[in-house]
């Protein structure tokens, strides 16, 4: 049995072939291991999402100076408490108009998720996934949770290069904005400040 460690004596004085292993040290070891692992266990699954920030430009880059060179496409998402606008920079605004989703239309996350999935599979709108090709601009009164939800949706659709910027970045680029540039002349986002 469990407590035994010696051969069980057999009838007739012969040595028995049965041998019981002493399990008490095993139980001791396992109990100590369990106690140690329970004490050192981390039960909350904390993780991180990385992002960078759109910083003010100090001087024009060579790319800005060369008008013939095709500027890289960027996916621009403008988050407001009640609506989300999705736009592309450096694409024809007539062919690819900005799309705005409102909270009143339904689940905002679901609407954005479906649209991002659609545009990320469109070969004409492929953005450079290795570079910071997605900019999330937000108005000041948007909650942090909403920004993280947008970032999660973007990463889920294979767009991990996310930059954050403030609402000044999208000035002049929204459909109802009086400062909006003429069709075909979408410019690169203005830096904050």
């Amino acid at each position: 049995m469990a407590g035994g460690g010696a051969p069980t004596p057999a009838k007739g004085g012969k040595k028995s072939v049965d041998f019981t292993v002493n399990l008490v040290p095993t139980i001791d070891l396992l109990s100590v291991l369990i106690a140690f692992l329970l004490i050192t266990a981390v039960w909350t699954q904390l993780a991180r999402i990385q992002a960078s920030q759109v910083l003010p430009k100090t001087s024009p880059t060579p790319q800005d100076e060369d008008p013939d060179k095709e500027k890289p496409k960027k996916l621009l998402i403008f988050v407001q408490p009640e609506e989300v606008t999705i736009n592309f920079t450096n694409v024809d605004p007539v062919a690819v108009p900005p799309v705005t989703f409102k909270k009143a239309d339904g689940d905002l996350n679901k609407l954005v998720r479906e649209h991002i999935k659609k545009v990320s599979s469109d070969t004409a709108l492929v953005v450079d996934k290795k570079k910071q090709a997605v900019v999330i601009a937000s108005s000041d009164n948007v909650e942090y949770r909403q920004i993280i939800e947008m970032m999660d949706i973007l990463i889920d659709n294979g767009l991990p290069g996310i930059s954050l910027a403030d609402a000044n970045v999208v000035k002049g680029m929204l459909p109802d904005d009086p400062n909006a540039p003429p069709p075909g002349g979408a410019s690169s986002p203005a830096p904050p400040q």
Partner: protein
Amino acid sequence: MPIVTKPSKQLVKKVPLAFIRKIADGHGRANVIADLNVTPMVDMLTMLVIFLLLTFSASGEILTITRDIVLPKAFNAVELERAPIIAISKAKIAFEGQFVMDATDISNERYVDFVLPPLKERLERNRDQWRLTHQDKTFDGNVIIQSDNSVNFVVIKMIMMTCAQAEYSQMNFAVLRTDRAGSSVGPAEGGEGAPAH
């Protein structure tokens, strides 16, 4: 008397109660001394050890969860690495567990250049200390931003700008990792999928 004796009825021989001795002796009835079968217990303990070893995190607890900071949930998140932590609640901003400034009166009008001077000073001091102790390494600029769900973007924006000014350019937003259904990405169409990276 030998120190080690064979476990048997002798265990209760010295009990000064006749009826106990009688029961222990058996008198043809079942013996009160029974061996405990510990094999299922060892099985259970082994299973527990395997489960705990699988869920064991070697990095330990990097962030301290406080009552006033409720982290947002996300599915596509990677494992945390040790870096300086900026904790932001609705009321205050802390750096590495120490209070830095109030977060209630942060606005574009008050901090026109989007930089929070008390936080910038702490970040720069931390960066200089790191450089002093790691002279053979290049500064990676990693920082963890642990913010409450309901903090407004104006605060996050200013903290990010302050970090960038203090050369902390790699900003990591702490989140609570959850399954697909519990996050904004929604349930997978063809079953549960792995994170994108």
